Structures are given as structure tokens and as C-alpha cells.
């Protein structure tokens, strides 16, 4: 297993928010690749630099640089497809299939 995933609840009953905990290491290498498939913003001037990637389907993923936890928010419409796409990408990157 490359990561653990759990649903996070918030104010909105229809929200699809998931937390991903990478089981090995931080996310810096991952971000380099994600930046090529989504719009990546990194706030380096924060005390703990913060990143956000926005994908074409509206999925957003954010977290702290060099941390092993990321939060993904899937668009409510067709969120299952968005989640599958994201997890397939994440698995491919973490397993080394995509470099």
C-alpha cells in the first residue's frame, strides 16, 4: 500500500473531501510531476510552504511541502470518476510508473 485514504467531513453534506497520507516520505517529488498535469501553486513564503494543484476536472489537492499528508477536494458532480482518476495518478507516481 502506497498511501492511506480517509474521508473528511465538513459543513456540506455533499462535499467529497479526502485526506491522503503517503506511507513513504514527503510529497516533493510528487509535486514536480503533478505540476505538469495540473495548475500548481506553491506559497514558498509561508512559514511552512503550502501548495495547491488544481486539475482540469475541478479536483484540488493541497498540503504542506515535504509533509506526507495531502487533502483532495473532488467536484460534487461525478466525484467518483474524479477520485478514481486522482488515485490512479497518485498510485502511478508513487510506484514509479510515472516519472
Amino acid at each position, binding site marked *: 500500500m502506497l498511501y492511506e485514504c480517509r474521508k473528511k467531513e465538513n*459543513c*456540506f453534506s455533499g462535499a467529497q473531501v479526502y485526506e491522503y497520507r503517503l506511507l513513504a516520505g514527503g510529497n516533493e517529488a510528487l509535486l514536480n510531476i503533478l505540476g505538469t498535469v495540473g495548475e500548481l501553486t506553491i*506559497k514558498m*513564503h*509561508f*512559514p*511552512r510552504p*503550502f501548495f495547491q494543484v488544481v486539475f482540469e476536472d475541478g479536483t484540488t489537492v493541497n498540503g504542506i511541502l515535504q509533509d506526507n499528508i495531502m487533502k483532495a*477536494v473532488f467536484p460534487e458532480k461525478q466525484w467518483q470518476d474524479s477520485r478514481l482518476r486522482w488515485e490512479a495518478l497518485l498510485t502511478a507516481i508513487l510506484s514509479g510508473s510515472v516519472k
Partner: protein
Amino acid sequence: MKLVYFNNAATSWPKPSVVAAAMADCVGHIPCQDARSGLEGESVSETCRERLAALLHIREAKQIVLGANATHALNVALHSFPWRNGASVVTTASEHNSVLRPLYQLAKTKGLRVHIIPVDVEGRVEPEVWRAALKKVQPSLAVFSHASNVTGAVNDAMLLGQIAREAGAVTLLDASQTTGFLPVYPETWHLDMVAFTGHKYLLGPGGTGGLYISPAIAPLLQPVWVGGTGIHSNLEDMPALMPMRFEAGTPNNPGLAGLSAALAWRAKNTFQPNSLLKEVERLCAGLTELGADVIDVTRPRTPVVSFTLPKWRVETVGEALQKSFGIVCRTGLHCAPHIHAFLGTAPCGTVRFSFSRFTQAQEIDYCLHAVHALLT
């Protein structure tokens, strides 16, 4: 990273050190509970009740029913109320789900007609709108909050209560956001019921709160939380005596010991809100200058600030503030779903900072620095 805590409207932190000490002391001693043990001595719940009565200027402490929190108190008030068929209730768009959800449930189970009146752009009830609604609806009960947990806007509880009384309604005030920060005087204001919580500005632990019930109204309520009271065990019904009529089961004595200690501490360490409110106003001005959309609230108010940032989702602001800057706050609807339509913050809600008497000026400075970083 040192955490900066700006979520006191949810639960206050830090607590005075006497709170934890009193709770540990309570757990460490043989319990002494009137009628539930043979041991005589000072009752934790009675001492707490007396201290609350002193704070709230209530003549007879027995009119205060202790419970788990304000949500518990509001449920006791609303579900015990003698609703007749076709009864109506008037409440406001700034209410918390602890008021709204019991009312929705009563609408489904008892056919209660729930009328929700609008609030202004600060989240405040306008007295003339309140008066018009009460005159039109002629409700059995009028329920309203003393202050919005989203904006901090404080209502004139005495005036709104008077208007409700003139319309023939029983009054229930949700004083969760003000008890311990501003005066709350149920009897002076002629309110029938007032719900409050121990873990916000009273600086007590979670799991404590209470409901003031006036002597005139108490006999009319039918308790729904029923069980052992330690006295009159031979009766099938709950005893008529206050407060045990509404206090079935073993109380949260460690929590009440903590709340009691907090009340004693507060009495010796008086607090004037003005300097904190000036800092709140400084923060609002600073946020506005940075480009935040701040919900502008005039006094009277509590130390709560709601805002949004351009190009940032509110939830992401909260995450960035906490994970990158160590600032703990709250984002979203704040369990008050209707108010946002009036504030212009629907559907996503706001970022909320809420302060306490322990908040320091340099923490406000740090907060402004963090928001500046988010916007650059």
C-alpha cells in the same frame, strides 16, 4: 510550531489553571452527591449552581438546570415546552443548528409551524422586523440568540424579549455566545428561559452548560429527559421540585467542578471587554486594508470576526492558516446555515476568528501578517 488559538467561539482556550486542578481534585475524592451517597458535604453541582446564579443575577439558584452544554439546554427547553396543535414559533435566521434542528424535528413530529425572520447585514435582529413578525404570527414561543456565532453582532435581548412578551409569547434566549463575556440577566430582562454553555466565555470545561427556567414557566414544562433523581424514587413521574425535575441521571461532577472553579476565578479576575474589542476592531480594519471582505459589525459585539479572502476558498484559508502558520480558526457555515444569505457569504460561509480575554496584541499582529502572506 507554536499554535495560536482563534476558535474561542467554538470552545475557549486556554482555561485558567484552576479548572483542570478542580476537575482532577473532584475525580480524586470520594463523590459527595446529595441523595446519591451517604456522604454529606459540599455538593459540586450546588456550588456551581450558586455561582452561576450570582453571575446571572438570579434570585433562586434552583431555577438553573445544569446539563451537558447549551445544545442540551435548548433541547430541554424546546422539547419540554407544552406545544398545542397548530402552535407556532418565531425564531431568526442567525440561529445555530442547536435551535434550528430541534425546531425542524418538532415541525415533523408535532406539526410545529416554524417562522424564521430575516436578520440585517450584520446578523442582527431588527426590533421592528421582530415586532411585525410576532404580531402577525402570534407564536407560543419566541427563540432568539443573544449574539451571532458567525458575526459577533449582539441583539438587545431585553428589548426583543419585551416585544415578544407583549405579543403573548414565551421567550427562550440562546446566550451561548455571550454568557461570560457580556451581562446576561434573565430575571432583570424578564426572560422565561435562557440557555448557556460552560465551555466558551465562562472558561469552563466541555460537557457543562445550563438552562435558566423562570418560576412561572417551570411548572408548565413536561420533562423529556427522565430517569433517576436520587429523591422521590417511589414516584413514576419526575419530582416536581426544581431543578431535579429536569436533571435526571448522574451529573458531570468533574466538569461542574471545573466550571465552578472557573466561575470563582472569574469573580476574582474581572475582565473589561473594551480593550479586547478594540483589538478586534483593529484586526477588522487591518484585514479590510489587506483586501479581505470583512463582515463589518458595530458594537455591541462579541470578539468574533468573519471574513472571506478573494481567490481563496474559505476551507483552504483555514487549512493554510493552520498548517502553514499554526493559526487555529474555523471555516464554513459555523452550524448557522441561514445567516449567510443575509451576509452575502452563501453558499460557502466564512473564515471566523474568535478571541478570548487571553488573546494578545502580538497574536493579532501575527494574524494580520499571515493574511497578508495569503494575499501576496
